[in-house]
């Protein structure tokens, strides 16, 4: 009669617990990335703190290795929709080097994303790497006008910079919900 027995509430809860633990272990890095792309606000701050802490705790287990290896294998098979990743995977495969296709470090840094191999925590306190003397250590930007109370400040972001700071989703949602844009 074992096969005919339906699941009870306690079994449902146990399945959910097993599911949640496994998904957190496998996806802690992806969750952090998700939180960092949320619309700016209190909820996003809480999400970033929670997922950041979670990732910090789970990172020593190096379980994100499964994710990276999986993605690298898929890139090698030509599965990725990013031609640059596919080409890089093929190039590195041909050279026999270990394949770890990393997202553009500059973009990841702008977005506050963890670069594979470095946790989000280390991004906040990056290790000192010797730079060539000719490398500019800072870029001088023209000063912004002072903020006037009650007046909105307009910051123009375009293309990749919008994507990098995770504004494309909110922008898209705003665009969709604005009656003038229908």
């Amino acid at each position: 009669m074992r096969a005919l027995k339906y699941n009870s509430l306690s079994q449902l809860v146990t399945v959910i617990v097993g599911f949640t633990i496994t998904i957190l272990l496998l996806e802690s890095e992806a969750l952090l990335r998700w939180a960092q792309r949320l619309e700016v606000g209190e909820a996003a701050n809480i999400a970033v703190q929670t997922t950041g802490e979670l990732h910090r705790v789970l990172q020593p287990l190096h379980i994100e290795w499964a994710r990276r290896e999986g993605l690298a294998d898929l890139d090698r098979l030509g599965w990725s929709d990013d031609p640059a990743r596919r080409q890089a995977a093929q190039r590195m495969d041909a050279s026999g080097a270990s394949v770890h296709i990393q997202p553009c470090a500059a973009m990841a840094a702008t977005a506050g994303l963890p670069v594979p191999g470095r946790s989000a925590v280390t991004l906040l306190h990056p290790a000192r790497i010797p730079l060539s003397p000719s490398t500019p250590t800072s870029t001088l930007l023209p000063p912004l006008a002072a903020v006037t109370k009650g007046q909105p400040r307009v910051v123009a972001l375009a293309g990749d910079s919008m994507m990098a700071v995770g504004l494309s989703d909110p922008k898209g949602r705003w665009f969709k919900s604005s009656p003038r844009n229908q």
Partner: protein
Amino acid sequence: MLFPTVEFGLFFVSVLLIAWSLHCFNGPHKLFLLLASYLFYGFWNWSYVPLLFCISLFSGLIAQRIQASSSQRLRKIWLFAGVVVCLATLGYYKYTSFFFTISLELWARVARPPSITIPSPLLPLGVSFFVFHAISLMMDAYRGKLKQAVRLGDALLYVAFFPQLIAGPILRASSFIPQLTSPRNPATIRVNRAFLLIVAGLFKKVVISNLLATRLVEQVFAAPQTFGRGDALLAIYGYAAQIYCDFSGYTDIAIGCAMLLGYRFPRNFNAPYSATNPQDFWRRWHISLSSWLRDYLYIPLGGSRGSAARTSSNLMITMLLGGLWHGAGWTFVIWGALHGFYLIVHRIWNSIPWQPVVQLRQTVAWRWIARLLLFHAVCFGWVFFRAPSFDIAFALLHRLTIPGVFTLASVPVMLALFLGLAGQYEPLRWRKALECELRYWPTLLRGAAFAVAIFAIELLGPSGVAPFIYFRF
């Protein structure tokens, strides 16, 4: 809130745990599900939650009036008023712009049209679905299919219940409202089946549908003139697989989520591309909509009770309106007309009494030929359904005559296409066997296995989440 997102995952797990902790108290349990449904809807746009609330409340009040009236005439008047208001709401949001555009075009043929701004209200998400639910509630009350008196709270939850709110399946009030009368029994939750449905649905949507959309269909439909025969053909087949996986994937997730909450939803797809005739196709594709149209439109029009000409006209009207329900555009009308035409041709073919034809219809070979013919006829219809304009549709069809190779036929695309089309032939017993097998696994391990499956889906799917195709209907 889209199903394959972290937001929905967090939302659903929270709702599931709180709903089951309240299951002994049916009233609070239903109230919680109702509030969760409004939260789910409000995540898209809060300003339309009052519309959803008003439509559900209105249909509930009308259903109560219908049930309370002893006079048949009065019941008919209440029903008529209710249906008119619901259809007017749908018409306003969905067809105002279409209607104005047509009117101005017609006007322009006889005189100089006035320069007016065409009103185009923002289409509320899932309006076609919740309006159909509201009509179903009133119709079932009118036909006496609801055995118990309709409670307003139940009516509100029936129309707004979040797993089916945005893209169906279109539940019948007579099958769902009785489920709300008693507390849910946790012993009846089929955890394995529900999780398998959710995983299968996510795979269809995130991997197959999204892959075909991004790597094949969108590229070809955006600029068909830049592709040759090979890619055009591949894109048409690709869209057939994409729309099936997109919509049936959504339905699988919706059914799985409802099942975990203790509610039963009807099956909405049953291997539609294995149909051998158009009538069979509509019994397998979006079953809840086709049966809704049959029961609430085709049969009230007279169904097949009249002459052959009358039946054909009823079929054509039903399919034209079915096409228009999908979207306010001439391409959808043509799509509906094509299916109406297929149904009429099938009726004529079936009524031929000539013995050789009767014998041919019964052979296995003919069944396979019919299956192939129907699949291609359906694919032809999908071109008009998918194309944003006739120009694009005809340009794509024209490309079928221009020689060209398969430039977009990458391994992932071909694999997704194969899985999308062949997957529907997966024997049901395989899934049942897997479901049975999972019962012997330790419970915690089962949860872990589902998580690994979702992890694999996330790796295999293209980046980003495309909205479900049926969301815009």
